[in-house]
């Protein structure tokens, strides 16, 4: 079917013809990015506000935060999954937001390229480091640990 016969043909029909590209020769990356910001944003409202409530409002709040507090939380798989999801979604959401800002304000192609290279490098390092920390955490690194797994 030609474009004239079906000027508003579906994205799917277009992407099949154009190898993932629409008629103007671009991919739908920006559409998915726009949608991702809204979906991840919604999840992050729950994840981040829950994190703040449990860590800063309950019990002793900030004064109670120490290694034992982290060990107690990560002894529960719910908090491991919570923190992993929060790390990934927040980093993707934040990195994509920063990408938008770089595109808006850095006018030279070279400046844009290097700022984005720096951004993506920093983001990958932080996501990999954070993921490793959650998966390799050892509560018994603390000799005074009172957790049952360390006895």
């Amino acid at each position, binding site marked *: 079917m030609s474009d004239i016969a079906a000027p508003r043909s579906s994205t799917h029909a277009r992407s099949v013809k154009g190898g993932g590209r629409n008629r103007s020769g671009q991919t739908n990356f920006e559409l998915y990015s726009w949608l991702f910001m809204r979906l991840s944003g919604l999840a992050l409202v729950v994840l981040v506000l829950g994190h703040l409530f449990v860590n800063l409002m309950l019990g*002793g709040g*900030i004064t109670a935060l120490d290694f034992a507090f*982290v060990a107690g939380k990560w002894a529960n798989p719910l908090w491991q999954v919570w923190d992993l999801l929060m*790390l990934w979604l927040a*980093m993707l959401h934040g990195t994509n*937001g920063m990408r938008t800002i770089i595109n808006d304000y850095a006018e*030279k192609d070279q400046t844009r390229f290097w700022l984005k290279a720096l951004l993506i490098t920093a983001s990958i390092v*932080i996501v990999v480091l954070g993921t490793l920390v959650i998966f390799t955490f050892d509560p018994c690194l*603390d000799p005074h640990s009172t957790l049952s797994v360390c006895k």
Partner: protein
Amino acid sequence: MPSKPAGTLYRGREGMWSWVAHRITGVGIFFFLLVHVLDTALVRVSPEAYNEVIGTYKNPIVGLMEVGLVGAILFHAFNGIRLILVDFWAKGPRNQRKLMIGVGVVWVVLFVPFVIRHLTHVFGG
């Protein structure tokens, strides 16, 4: 790329300022997030290293910065929900002014109890 024409300022009133504030709070939260993953990573170094660095979060000056951080997060969260409603809710654009007031109300309702509780922890000992 064309250079900016001189002497133009988009005066978009509250819609523009909420957009500016969304960007500024977003950038601030992003940089805190980078630091926060790094400080948390110290749990893999030693309990003492982690406790020492997390101890700086309990210092009164840093405690006040945390109030600012939480204020920024609450604004970014609920202004983000307003954006979603404007984009996806059929009546969103027509009610955008009411949504803006809603963001302010929710922000105050959540922020005030937080400030009281957090400053009690930080300064109350």
